[in-house]
């Protein structure tokens, strides 16, 4: 019972205990009182009363003996009832001198303490009423003492009896008082301890709360309600910035995953309030506007019937940055290894490949699927296996971190043999020994080396052969040299040919240009001729009409009219003739089978040149009487003769004569154009048909006129010939094949 402080037991227990102690002590004193009562009953002869008292005491003993079987209240009621019996019997027997009246205080106190204060008052009232009732009965004489009061007060047993009762009552009061005070003291002490403990706890939790590295926040109705100091440090803010605000109000509008912060927060709070704790990453804004990442853990907690959400925020900006750096570094190393031109491979001691860069696959064909396969298809060449094994054993048993340079053959998955050159290094990965192999494919180099070796061996032989060959070649070269001389000569000749061809081409070009010119002129003159022919038609029609009119009226005899009509007719005829000649002259067909009357051709030329010849040059026609026909192109023949006549006229400085003479023999028509002009020197005479040869001043002659004439005559299968004497004149003789009228 002393192991625990009294206060920790219920008050009811205390009451029960006090009741039981009182029962025991009262029983002891009741027994004492019964013994005393026996003697007093003998002295005062009220045995009846004594029997009552004895019975009551016996019942009391019974209750005390079976005290564990009764409830506290029942025991008190029984005790009160028994004391009431003793009290009443005492008053009946001894009246004012009854010692039992001292029990009033004890019983009332007991009831007040064990049951209730009110019941204690009622008990006190009942007992006082009984006392006063007996006092009244004695005072009116209804009851009277059977003994002498004087003697009784001098009887020591009465005093003794009173002393027992006084002791009993006083002891009970003191006992209750003692227990109460003890209980109270302990209670206070325990309260004080509890208080200290509470304060301690408060302090402890507050320290925990405030010294945490994580922000701890209490959230009520989705709003920040309370937070620790680190929260403010984390947000770099005052309390006002976050208090009574919803978390999304100091978050960016959208979280890094693109979801709206307000909606996301709402969803999370819904889940938490359904009792599902949430752990997630979140982005917040500090009061200075800086963004930062936190890892958030949310839990529902219950404090004094209020539901809160407890949030623990950890700033993970640094860890995110670290993760990013690691990723970057990872990427860097990966790039380094992947872009390395040689094979890099990591394997463990069991022969499993842990990692290989891309060249491992491209060169050997070993894919990640083959990494854990021990008898791979791609392997070291069996002949080189001992060398590689020896190096491995040396590396693993020695203290060197890497092997010597190993050159070995390797068969790839496709069966092709490579030459590898590389080293194997010891590498510790997660505390485990691994082997790192760096190999370069030197197949090409090996091939070249082998070939070089071969070359070296056969070089001397080769030199001997070559020396001989060189001697032979030398002789051949001498022979070739002679040939070259001959060829050189040939080339020179060809060169001359080429030059000739060039000249021909040049001539052809000139002809083309001239032809084009003539064609344009042809189109022009044809158009003009047509336009002039219409007005000529008007005049001719008018003339014919007038002639008919004058003839009808017999006026043609009038010489004036005759003269005027003939003038009109002559004018029209001449104009018609000119236009006709122009038309013929300008024809641009390539037809060489036209019937050409040479006399008409010559006349047409004179017609066209009339204006430039008249008054200066006399033209003398010495045509044969018959018309002479030639087969050819009228336009070109016109061009030919007009050129000759112009040349003749230009040779005549002032006044002179040009003679046009025609002759015919069996096969040819001959036309001679003779002038009495300046003549041509003998040396120039040979060159006059060369293109661009001219003696005229620059700008006044192209030098192609006679060249074109020569071309036209050649086209007509004819010839031309010049005879000339300086200051006497020049004669051009043109011969054209005659057209046979067969």
């Amino acid at each position, binding site marked *: 019972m002393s192991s625990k402080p009294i206060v920790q037991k219920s008050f009811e227990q205390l009451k029960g205990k006090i009741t039981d102690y009182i029962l025991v002590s009262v029983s002891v004193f009741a027994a004492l009182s019964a013994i005393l009562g026996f003697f007093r009953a003998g002295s005062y002869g009220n045995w009846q009363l004594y029997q009552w008292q004895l019975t009551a005491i016996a019942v009391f003993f019974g209750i005390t003996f079976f005290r564990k079987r009764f409830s506290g209240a029942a025991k008190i009621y029984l005790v009160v009832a028994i004391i009431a019996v003793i009290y009443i019997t005492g008053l009946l027997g001894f009246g004012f001198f009854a010692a039992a009246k001292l029990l009033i205080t004890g019983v009332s106190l007991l009831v007040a303490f064990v049951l209730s204060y009110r019941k204690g008052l009622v008990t006190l009232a009942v007992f006082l009423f009984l006392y006063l009732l007996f006092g009244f009965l004695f005072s009116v004489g209804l009851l009277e003492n059977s003994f002498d009061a004087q003697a009784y007060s001098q009887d020591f047993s009465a005093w003794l009896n009173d002393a027992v009762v006084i002791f009993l009552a006083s002891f009970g009061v003191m006992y209750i008082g003692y227990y109460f005070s003890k209980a109270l003291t302990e209670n206070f002490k325990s309260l004080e301890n509890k208080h200290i403990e509470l304060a301690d706890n408060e302090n402890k939790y507050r320290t925990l709360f405030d010294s945490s590295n994580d922000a701890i926040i209490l959230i009520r109705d989705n709003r920040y309600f309370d937070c620790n100091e680190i929260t403010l440090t984390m947000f770099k803010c005052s309390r006002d910035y976050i208090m009574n605000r919803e978390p999304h109000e100091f978050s960016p509008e959208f979280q890094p995953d693109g979801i709206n912060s307000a909606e996301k927060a709402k969803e999370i709070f819904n889940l938490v309030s359904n009792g599902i704790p949430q752990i997630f990453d979140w982005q917040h804004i500090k009061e200075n506007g800086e963004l930062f990442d936190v890892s958030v853990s949310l839990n529902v907690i219950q404090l004094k019937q209020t539901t809160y959400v407890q949030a623990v925020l950890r700033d993970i900006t640094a860890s995110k940055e670290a993760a990013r750096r690691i990723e970057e570094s990872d990427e860097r190393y990966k790039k380094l290894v992947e872009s390395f031109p040689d094979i890099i491979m990591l394997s463990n001691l069991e022969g499993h490949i842990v990692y290989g860069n891309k060249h491992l696959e491209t060169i050997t064909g070993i894919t990640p699927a083959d990494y854990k396969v021990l008898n791979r298809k791609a392997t070291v060449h069996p002949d080189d296996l001992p060398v590689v094994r020896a190096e491995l054993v040396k590396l693993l048993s020695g203290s060197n971190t890497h092997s010597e340079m190993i050159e070995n053959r390797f068969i790839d998955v496709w069966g092709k043999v490579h030459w590898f050159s590389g080293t194997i290094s010891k590498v510790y990965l997660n505390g485990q020994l691994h082997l790192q192999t760096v190999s370069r494919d030197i197949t090409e180099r090996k091939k070249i080396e082998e070939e070089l070796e071969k070359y070296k061996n056969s070089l001397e032989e080769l030199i001997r052969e070559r020396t001989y060959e060189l001697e032979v070649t030398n002789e051949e070269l001498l022979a070739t040299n002679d040939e070259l001389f001959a060829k050189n000569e040939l080339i020179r000749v060809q060169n001359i040919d080429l030059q000739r061809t060039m000249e021909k081409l040049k001539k052809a070009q000139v002809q083309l240009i001239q032809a084009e010119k003539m064609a344009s002129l042809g189109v022009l003159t*044809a158009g003009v*001729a*047509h*336009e*002039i*022919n*219409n007005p*000529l*038609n*008007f*005049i*001719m*029609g*008018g003339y*014919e*009409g007038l002639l*008919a009119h004058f003839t009808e009226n017999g006026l043609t005899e009038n010489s004036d009219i005759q003269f005027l009509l003939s003038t009109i007719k002559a004018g*029209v005829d001449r104009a*018609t003739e000119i236009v*006709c000649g122009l*038309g*013929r002259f300008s*024809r641009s*067909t390539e037809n060489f089978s036209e019937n050409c009357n040479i006399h008409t051709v010559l006349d047409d030329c004179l017609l066209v040149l009339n204006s430039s010849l008249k008054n200066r040059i006399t033209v003398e026609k010495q045509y044969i009487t018959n018309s002479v026909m030639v087969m050819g192109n009228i336009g070109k023949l016109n061009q030919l003769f007009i050129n000759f006549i112009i040349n003749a006229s230009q040779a005549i400085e002032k006044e002179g004569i040009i003679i046009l003479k025609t002759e015919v023999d069996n096969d040819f028509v001959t036309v001679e154009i003779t002038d009495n002009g300046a003549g041509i020197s003998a040396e120039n005479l040979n060159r006059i048909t060369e293109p661009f040869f001219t003696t005229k001043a620059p700008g006044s002659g192209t030098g192609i006129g006679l060249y074109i004439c020569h071309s036209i005559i050649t086209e007509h299968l004819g010839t031309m010939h010049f005879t000339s004497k300086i200051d006497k004149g020049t004669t051009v003789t043109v011969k054209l094949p005659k057209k046979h009228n067969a």
Partner: protein
Amino acid sequence: MNTDINILYVDDEFLNLQIFKFNFGKKFNVLVADSGDEGLRILADNASISIVISDMKMPNMSGLEFIEIAKRMYPSICFYILTGFGMNEEIQKAMDEKLINRYFSKPLNLPLIESEILNATGQNR
């Protein structure tokens, strides 16, 4: 004298038409048209036309184009070209294909045309 011979003359020049009419009007019955289209209309209205003489160069429809259409519709008519151009390949071709009987040059040669007309109509009869 031969006014029962009906001739159609087609030319885009007004004066040419007038002069032709003046010079041949007393000998033949001359109809004139200033375009190929007009010529075709007149041919459709006058079944008695036996001679057609046309200019060569006219706007819209050339003389040969006109004749080509007309010859297909009236194969019995004799067609002639009267042109300021000299002989050319087009005309040569038309003559080879018997589209036209022959061609005359401008300025017109009255006796030549008249004799040809009489010749043609005389043969036709």
